[in-house]
């Protein structure tokens, strides 16, 4: 019975799962809301049950409802319940719901910390993954602080699946808990070189995002990213990096210089449009940041513009859109380049897609010139007629105004045309840009004196037709133009043809339906107009006219008096009273026209927009100074808190009283300033005043208007026929005619001028115009906006503006969870714990690696850098952290190094390199690294090398010479140093050669011997190398590598990198980390070879070294370029550090007797039938020994190591082809190693 009950309830519970819900919603289309309400009730019931499966089902349904837009925050606690389930399927449902519905303000999140921590550390990688996923959606500052360390640990997980996610989530943690950034950053940086491309790309993502917001802190990473950019083939990563560089270059223009080449290469080579687009964008950004002082990037700009043209011409609307978008960026700095594609852009104005047309409009302002402005505007006006939707029409309208008015009306040659365009624009239906047009009208009428008469005429017409405009007044803002019309007609009424008629127009009943501020202008200007008419009538002594017009005003003005708008009412009342007074005087036959006109005498001058801001603070006035003593300072703060809330009345009174005093004080000052100002305006050419037009304005000087033939425009054509043919077209026509005439005239004398016909100069400027800057306070100059773009205070990234190059302080570590506060040694504990943990990890990692090695060679290529490098715990890293790079000892050291004991100490001492300087060096444009020097192989060595090498050596030399020449300049600084080096080299070689010559003379020909060993080889490239040492530099070793191209294609961007060991380090560019390769300073054309030298610093020479390394290079074909890698092992035998030094037999004997050479070692090798002389030659050649003495079948040999070890050998041929060698040296291990090496090489 009970069972049945349970079963029943189970059935009931499961009768509606997610599928049923979805289906149900579909079936209840009419009463969806009701159905869902019902479902939610059921869900609430289900959530009350104890059965977790039921709850999970309910939560799954809630997730669906949440997606539909329903609020499910009430179920947050149940979601957490499901999240904490042990069963993965339920847990997943819970996390999904949480990631959809939780956010920072969800309070129950406080409860989740430990649960999430548990999931993060779960053995099941999918548990950890969903926890990380969820966390990314609902990270809170608390969670970030508490879990930062756990996520950090996951960053070193053995599973890339987890590492990848952990890296990404770090970004969210940084945002919510900025303190985590510095301790976590070194590890994050390591992930840039993670062997898993997914992790790598995640790290790139995060760092790019961080760097984009606070670029200056990440400049030092530029070399790393640069390397990634040139080596990565993942387009997603490339896009990110390239974008990042776009953000970095404004801070460091030299970086831009470095970027141009690889970016243009990518532009040429990539087939991915997204990457291409990104490259172009960044090149543009780079060029913008370089725009001053870098004239030689025209080629790049041209390339970009060409590629963009291809995009714009594409039939794909998306490409077209983006092409135009990018074009507009170029336009800002390189307008000329874009103007070349005017045709294309104008064509886009006709595109069927409005978005594209809008983008094309954005470009338009850069396309106009004096010559084509009229045409373009006409085209836009036609578009405006056709346009559907007021949005686009408005955009067109504002663009017309923008392109015409830009640069102080630079491109307008005929203002009559412009005014008529503006008037025509008033007829555009439903625009909201009425005020824009109005302000243009005002601006032009005020600033272009010559146009006033014409403008006034046009305005009069507008007023006459105001009913058409006013009728649409309610619909939109076009009635704003009446504001301008009334003001212009009133202010410049002297130009009116029929002032009386205009006055009538302004007094129409309809006017009262206009908005208040426009009516106010009407009222004011009616009075101005009246004054003008009055003056005129009095001159004509037309007393009837005077009376009539006065009566008209007195009769009509009351309609404004009744206006609801205060401003209108006040003005109307005032003016009405004035009128009544004037009328009274007129009735007494007193002529008062002059007095009335005097009300409006004087001219209004334009004021510069920034004038107010530029008003200088008068001398002696300190705005920051307290007027009274400052209110009680900090000492008072400690008093009773409530005193803060009781305002000190007396003080406040005091303050308000004293304020005027200050003004009084500055009154003298003001007076003085006024005087000065008056004087100034007299002399200021920019100050518009009566008669100013006589003086040449700035504008005139530039255009030299006097030289330009003034085209006659037939003004007799009746101008005021509103609504008929386009007035502006007439001007266009006139201009065309004029140009035609002009051309004809000029036809005779072509040559020189023709060239210029494209230029702006010869476009006739119809009007002699005065355009000037506005009035400014004296001493102030116009200047650009000083507004600085800073991150918004609310932007979380503001907090991430953290210096990452500064070494970590001891207390900068992530909060580690500790159970209880414990003994004094507690501080160390987490470190140890971690170490253990990591060690374990490492072991696992090694095992895994071994497996993987078998599995895939690809993995192997990169394996070292990432995984284990991450292991040294963060806290150790804190201690080891050096200022710049190499924060954490590279993993290779532990694996490779022979005697790890001694050098460790040295290695851990921080390098004293300023990261900034490193970057400086990297950026200084020195392509050739210090260590790499290309020299011709020494003749001595070449001579001994087999015949092949000898053949080619000539070519080599030639090439090298060339290379040398090119580098000469760069290297001049180091010339001295190098010279001595070369000299040394020669010494050494002559020593070696000496030995051989003796041998050579000895008899049978020697088998070919080459000191060049094969380093590595693949289908494209072969590397052979030789080591070179110099006696004075005991710790330096030069590896000279001959790169031989086996490919048909060009090999580019070769980079030679060797994993440093504790004992041996490659000299890199300053600032490069141990993971950075040294760029090989040449490219390899097909079937060529070249030699590069790489310097190594070696601590101890008594053990042979085997270093792992990688050569990366790019195969460049016409269509594409692919990056390749070649791994190698660089073997540095002990004999490499020996220098065959000639030694006299006396000295040799003394050395042996001195007792200093305490160690002995003997080997036997079989000559294999070769004559003794050959064996000897081999020993000498490969072992770098010089023959001291040779007697028959025995010889004594001597060599000296770079660190001053003497090695003496006695080589004896025993019977039966055996050769025995006995050696003596002070250093036993060196001796034994050297001799074992000889045994291998000589037999």
């Amino acid at each position, binding site marked *: 019975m009970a069972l049945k009950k349970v079963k029943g309830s189970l059935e009931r519970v499961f009768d509606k799962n997610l599928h049923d819900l979805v289906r149900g919603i579909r079936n209840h289309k009419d009463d969806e809301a009701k159905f869902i309400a019902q479902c939610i009730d059921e869900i609430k019931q289900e959530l009350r049950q104890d059965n977790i499966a039921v709850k999970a089902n309910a939560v799954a349904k809630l997730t*669906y409802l949440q997606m539909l837009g329903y609020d499910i925050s009430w179920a947050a606690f149940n979601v957490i319940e499901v999240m904490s389930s042990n069963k*993965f399927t339920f847990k997943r449902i819970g996390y999904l719901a949480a990631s959809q519905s939780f956010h920072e303000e969800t309070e129950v999140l406080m409860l989740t910390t430990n649960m999430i921590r548990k999931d993060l550390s779960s053995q099941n990688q999918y548990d950890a993954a969903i926890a990380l996923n969820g966390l990314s959606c609902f990270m809170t500052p608390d969670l970030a602080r508490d879990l930062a360390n756990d996520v950090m640990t996951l960053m070193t997980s053995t599973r890339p699946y987890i590492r990848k*996610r952990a890296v990404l989530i770090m970004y969210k943690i940084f945002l919510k808990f900025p303190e985590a950034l510095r301790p976590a950053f070194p590890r994050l940086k390591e992930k840039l070189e993670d062997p898993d491309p997914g992790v790598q790309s995640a790290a790139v993502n995060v760092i790019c995002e961080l760097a984009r917001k606070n670029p200056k802190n990440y400049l030092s990473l530029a070399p790393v990213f640069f390397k990634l950019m040139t080596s990565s083939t993942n387009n*997603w990563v490339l896009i990110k990096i390239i974008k990042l560089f776009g953000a970095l270059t404004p801070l460091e223009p030299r970086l831009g210089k470095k970027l141009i080449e690889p970016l243009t290469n990518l532009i040429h080579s990539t087939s991915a449009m997204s990457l291409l687009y990104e490259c172009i964008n960044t090149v543009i950004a780079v060029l913008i940041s370089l725009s001053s002082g870098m004239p030689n990037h025209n080629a790049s700009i041209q390339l970009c513009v060409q590629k963009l043209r291809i995009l714009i011409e594409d039939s794909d609307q998306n490409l077209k859109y983006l092409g135009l978008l990018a074009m507009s960026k170029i336009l800002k700095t390189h307008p000329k380049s874009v103007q070349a594609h005017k045709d294309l852009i104008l064509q886009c104005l006709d595109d*069927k897609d409005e978005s594209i047309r809008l983008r094309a409009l954005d470009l338009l302002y850069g396309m106009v010139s004096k010559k084509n402005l009229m045409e373009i505007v006409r085209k836009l006006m036609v578009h405006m007629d056709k346009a559907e939707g007021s949005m686009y029409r408005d955009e067109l309208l504002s663009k017309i105004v923008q392109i015409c008015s830009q640069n102080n009306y630079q491109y307008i040659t005929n203002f009559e045309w412009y005014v008529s365009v503006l008037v025509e624009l008033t007829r555009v239906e439903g625009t909201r840009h009425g005020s824009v047009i109005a302000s243009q009208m005002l601006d032009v009428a005020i600033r272009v004196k010559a146009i006033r008469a014409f403008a006034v005429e046009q305005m009069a017409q507008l007023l006459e037709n105001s009913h058409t405009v006013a009728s649409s007044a309610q619909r939109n803002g076009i009635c704003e133009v009446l504001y301008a019309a009334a003001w212009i007609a009133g202010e410049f009424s002297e130009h009116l043809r029929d002032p009386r008629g205009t006055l009538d127009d302004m007094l129409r009943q309809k006017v009262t339906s206009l908005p208040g501020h426009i009516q106010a202008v009407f009222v004011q200007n009616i009075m101005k107009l009246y004054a003008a008419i009055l003056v005129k009538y009095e001159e004509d002594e037309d007393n009837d006219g005077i009376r009539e017009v006065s009566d008209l005003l007195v009769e009509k003005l009351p309609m404004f008096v009744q206006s609801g708008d205060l401003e209108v009412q006040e003005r109307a009342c005032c003016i009405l009273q004035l009128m009544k007074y004037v009328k009274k005087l007129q009735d007494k036959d007193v002529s008062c026209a002059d007095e009335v006109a005097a009300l409006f005498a004087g001219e209004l001058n334009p004021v510069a927009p920034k004038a107010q801001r530029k008003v200088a603070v008068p001398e002696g006035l300190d705005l920051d100074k307290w007027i009274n003593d400052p209110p009680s300072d900090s000492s008072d703060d400690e008093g009773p808190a409530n005193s803060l809330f009781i305002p000190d009345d007396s003080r406040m009174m005091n303050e308000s009283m004293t304020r005027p005093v200050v003004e009084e004080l500055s009154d003298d000052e003001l007076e003085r300033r006024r005087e000065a100002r008056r004087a100034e305006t007299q002399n200021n050419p920019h100050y518009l005043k009566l008669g100013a037009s006589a003086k040449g304005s700035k504008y005139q000087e530039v255009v030299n208007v006097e030289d330009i033939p003034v085209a006659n425009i037939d003004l007799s054509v009746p101008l005021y026929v509103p609504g008929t043919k386009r007035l502006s077209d007439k001007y266009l026509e006139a201009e065309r005619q004029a140009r035609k005439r002009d051309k004809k005239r000029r036809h005779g004398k072509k040559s020189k001028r023709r060239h210029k016909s494209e230029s702006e100069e010869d476009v006739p400027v119809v009007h002699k115009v005065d355009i000037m800057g506005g009035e400014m306070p004296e001493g102030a100059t116009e200047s650009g906006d000083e507004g600085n773009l800073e991150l918004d205070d609310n932007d979380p990234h503001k907090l991430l503006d953290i210096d990452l190059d500064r070494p970590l302080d001891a207390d900068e570590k992530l909060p580690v969870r500790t159970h209880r506060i414990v003994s004094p040694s507690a501080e160390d504990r987490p470190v140890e714990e971690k170490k253990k943990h990591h060690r374990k990890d490492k072991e696992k990692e090694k095992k895994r690696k071994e497996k993987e090695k078998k599995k895939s060679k690809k993995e192997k290529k990169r394996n070292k850098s990432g995984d284990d490098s991450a292991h040294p715990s963060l806290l150790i890293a804190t201690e080891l952290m050096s200022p710049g790079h190499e924060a954490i000892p590279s993993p290779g050291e532990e694996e490779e190094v022979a005697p790890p004991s001694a050098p460790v100490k040295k290695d851990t001492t921080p390098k004293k390199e300023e990261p900034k300087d490193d970057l400086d060096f990297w950026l200084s444009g020195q392509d050739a690294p210090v260590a790499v020097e290309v020299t011709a192989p020494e003749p001595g060595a070449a001579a001994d090398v087999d015949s092949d090498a000898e053949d080619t050596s000539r070519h080599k030399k030639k090439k090298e010479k060339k290379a040398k020449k090119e580098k000469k300049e760069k290297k001049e600084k180091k010339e001295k140093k190098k010279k001595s080096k070369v000299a040394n080299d020669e010494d050494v070689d002559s020593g070696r050669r000496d030995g051989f010559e003796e041998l050579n003379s000895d008899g049978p020909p020697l088998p070919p011997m080459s000191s060049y060993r094969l380093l590595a080889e693949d289908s494209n490239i072969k590397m052979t190398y030789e080591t070179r040492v110099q006696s004075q530099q005991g710790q330096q070793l030069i590896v000279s590598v001959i790169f031989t191209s086996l490919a048909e294609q060009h090999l580019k961007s070769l980079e030679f990198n060797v994993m440093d060991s504790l004992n041996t380090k490659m000299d890199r560019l300053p600032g490069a980390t141990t993971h950075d390769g040294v760029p090989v300073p040449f490219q390899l054309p097909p079937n060529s070879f070249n030699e590069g030298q790489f310097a190594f610093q070696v601590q101890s020479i008594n053990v042979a070294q085997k270093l792992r390394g990688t050569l990366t290079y790019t195969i460049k074909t016409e269509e594409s370029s692919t990056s390749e890698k070649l791994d190698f092992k660089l073997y540095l035998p002990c004999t490499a550090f020996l220098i065959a030094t000639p030694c006299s037999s006396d000295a040799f004997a003394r050395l042996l007797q001195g007792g200093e050479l305490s160690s002995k070692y003997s080997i036997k090798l079989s000559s294999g039938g070769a004559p003794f002389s050959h064996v000897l030659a081999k020993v000498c050649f490969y072992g770098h020994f010089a023959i001291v003495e040779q007697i028959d079948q025995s010889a004594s040999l001597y060599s000296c190591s770079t660190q001053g070890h003497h090695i003496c050998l006695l080589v004896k041929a025993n019977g039966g082809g055996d050769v025995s060698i006995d050696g003596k040296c002070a250093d036993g291990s060196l001796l034994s190693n050297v001799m074992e090496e000889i045994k291998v090489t000589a037999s």
Partner: protein
Amino acid sequence: MLKFILLVNKQGQTRLAQYYEHPEHERVSIERDIIRKCLAREDSQCSFLEYKNFKLVYRRYASLYFIVGVDHTENELAILELIHNIVETYDKYFDKVCELDIMFNLDKAYMILEEMVMNGRIVEMNQNRILLPIRVMDQAAQ
């Protein structure tokens, strides 16, 4: 970075909504507005829209619109590629994906999306690698 991914059918009904930035307020009304804007566009128009302070990149597949909101730094073409990849991945997993597949397997659809985009950033574009963990979980569930 990505702000959200929306999957909407021709009738304007949301079929999947993944937000990577908590929408400030009124998610529903904004969502509706965005959907309306995108649905109103014609085929001849380009797939990008400026919307408030971010960009919309959308693409239509039969009756489903994929709408992605991105900030201004994102590369539009790359986002289009992402959308296409999402669709291909769905297609691969659901075998000829249709609206109903996504409606009835919303959790799977979310999971796939989670594999591809996390934290508003693209994490994985390899379809096999995306689907691997999901297939593993499917097997575990059986």
